[in-house]
């Protein structure tokens, strides 16, 4: 593994992160936005585990963090979905463009 180095993993993580951000910024479907969020979180997790592997100071911490993030992502996905369902029940649509009642 040593000849692989850290950078490729970080590059992959950056790519996943960018995909996630673009997904959030460009999907009209609320569930699509949620998927973008999942991508972002996963990118962060990859980053954490890569550092855990390549930095001896964080061998344990990286994994612990990753596990916590996974759990919290799951929780957050549950709540987000509940909100989306609520929104669907009230407005009969999941189009985020229709959720602009906070318009100034």
């Amino acid at each position, binding site marked *: 593994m040593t000849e692989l180095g850290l950078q490729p993993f970080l590059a992959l993580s950056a790519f996943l992160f960018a995909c996630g951000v673009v997904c959030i910024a460009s999907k009209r479907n609320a569930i699509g936005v949620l998927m973008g969020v999942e991508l972002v979180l996963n990118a962060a997790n990859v980053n954490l585990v890569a550092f855990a592997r390549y930095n001896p100071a964080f061998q344990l911490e990286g994994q612990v963090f990753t596990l916590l993030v996974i759990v919290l992502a799951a929780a957050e996905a549950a709540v987000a979905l509940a909100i989306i369902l609520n929104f669907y029940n009230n407005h009969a649509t999941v189009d985020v463009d229709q959720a*602009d009642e*906070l318009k100034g």
Partner: protein
Amino acid sequence: MLNWIDTNPGRIYLVATLLPLVAFTLLLIGGGIRSACRPYRRQGGFADSLYWIFGGDKPLKTGAYLATVLMALAAVLGVTGLVLVLTDPSEGSLREDRWAERLTSWVHLGPDLPTPTEWDRKRESDPTPPPLVALKLELGYKIDHLAAVVFAMVTVISTLIFIFSLGYMQDETEVVVADHEVDRQTVGRHASGPHVGQHFQRRGRFGRFFLYLSLFCFSMLNLVIADNLFQVFVSWELVGICSFLLIGFYYERPSASTAANKAFIINRVGDAGFLVGIMIAWTYLGTLNFEEMFTRVRSPIADSHGVAQFPNQLIRANAAEPYRDGTPRYELPPRDEFGTGSHLILMPLVPEEPSHVHSPGYGPHRDQDFAVPASQNVTTYGAIPYWLFVVMGVGIFLGCVGKSAQVPLHTWLPDAMEGPTPVSALIHAATMVAAGVYLVGRSFPLFAPEVLLVIAYIGAITLFMAATIALVQTDIKRVLAYSTCSQLGFMMLALGVGGWVAGLLHLITHAFFKALLFLCSGSVIHGCHHEQDIRKMGGLRHKMPITAFTMLVGVLAIAGMPLLSGWYSKDQIIAAAMAYGLDHQHHFLLFLLPVLTTGLTAFYMFRLWLLTFTGSPRDTQVHEHAQESPRVMTIPLIVLAVFSIGVAWGWPLWNADASYLGEILKKSEPAAVAVAFAHEHETAHHYHLAAGGLALILAIIGAGLAFHYFSRRQPTPETMSAPGGAGYRFLLNKWYWDEAYDKGLVRPTIQLAQAAAAADKRPTDAPPPPGEPELPPKRFDLLTVDGLLNTVGQAVAGVGRWLRIVQTGQLRMYMLALALTAVLLLGILTALTE
């Protein structure tokens, strides 16, 4: 408790000053409770019973009795204090400790000054406490002979006037009072209101009168015992307010309310000058305490090497080359030019080294050189530009000009007669207007010779002018008002030409006989049912004998009949004026005018008395219903008459210089008077009899002329009311001062105000006539006040509208913005760490 007074007998005065304040507070609380409970007065309940306890619908007289009793108590304390002051054998600093106290400091500015080093070094051998602290405003009192005498005078006269008012203000004890004067003055104004055809009615205000009067007495007494200019100023303003309240006592009369405004505003003009003087004193002298200011301004009397070469004088010096370390230096002028110089040197309050003090002078061991540090304080020498010192004196004097109704701030005093007569007697004859003269007397060492000359001239002009106006007035109180103005001019003149004792003696005697004259006129007015025009009187001698006799005593006193109190003081004033005129021939007016006015005074005072009390009655209606006043009013008259006769007696009786009161006053004469006017005092002593004789001759001529015109030849109502020549009208219209002020000051101010208002008004404020379009706002307004403010508001609204575009409510926009921000921040961080 006696020990408390025994150690500091001056505390008697403190108690006496606070007694009227106690009366004021109690009356205020009682009146306040009563008016707060008035809305509930028919509802039966706690408020209702409180209302009836505190008087109910009719004003309660208890408050007035209480105020009178407390005032009488203060008078007793004042006289006791005077006796104690006269019999106290202590001298020097022990006396100062017993009769003066610096009670508390209100405001402390800056840190305490460091004690001069020599004091620290010698502290074991010299137990005197180290000197003063930073600038402070404080309260304190100082009783010397002058203060004791004036205090006793004020309290005694106040008590008598309180007693007089119990009778004079009887009308105000009614539940409902109808004021016909208001009807007369506002005729036509309420033509469409609910009062058409009705007489004006209001509730009685008996208690309020005594409330204001008590406050006034407290303020006046505070002024008398004050030991620093700040306390004087506070009392100054307080008496001004009380004067305003009392002149406008019948405030529904437009004449009364305008007169009150006029008095207050004109006083304020004088107070502005006073403030300028105080500020200069505060800045340069560093203190407002009288004793300390005098020590600063005048050279010491003695130093470590004996008597000073120039004791107690104003030392002037010129700026010279600074010392090597940069400290500015001032130098006495050459010996033959002594007394000139661009700056006045201020002496340190406490010297650097208490055991080795030099005084200014020429020769060894005398300071010709003064080192004045850049930041002067009270323990170093100081230098004030001489012109600024003169301005300070003029400023303080301006306050006195306003308060004592001297030219040009005299126009308020005649109008102040709108107030009830006891008010005129107390405030505008005996006490408040005397405050100005008292202050001039107190602060005498602070006045440069130029200022004293100004004081003398203003006094001279005033005394002459007011006397000429009084010759032709037809209202009893107006004659007496102008007479007061004139006599105050006498006092100012006396103070300006070196007759310090003369001026202040006249203050005391004048207080007594002027109060007597005013109270007599009040008695006449009361007896004639509020008739004040002497053209309608005549022959009242038989109807009101006590009033007539006591008024005659007053008239004789003011005219200067020998052996009456007025003669002693007037004699001394004329002697001082003559001495000054002889020594300074080019100031002959300062002698000529008072001598002439002595004659004029006798003339108009006798005219007043003769027209009122002798001859045949000119208005039978008035004469029919005239009656003598009740005893509560005539007894104060008799007491005051006794005082007017004998208050200035001395032994031998026929020697005007021997007045006992004058000798008492002489004990508190500042040394500066003797220093500045030594030669004039010599001359006065020589020419004393000549001056007295001259004054007496002129008074007799004046009285004779009055008898001739008004007793032998009985004037009829027609001759009295006939329009006279131009000179007569000039005098009747008070030398046209009011008209000049109106044209020169009042009109331009109102025009300026109207112009300023026009700049702000829009033509659209009034609705446009029907059919015409609305006009746009004026261009001037668009560019300035309104336009600017509106622009600011519109700009903010515009920016808000522009910023609103960002809030789309769309999630994706927000996310893009978030991402953009993250990218930017990351980029910046990367760039910075590259």
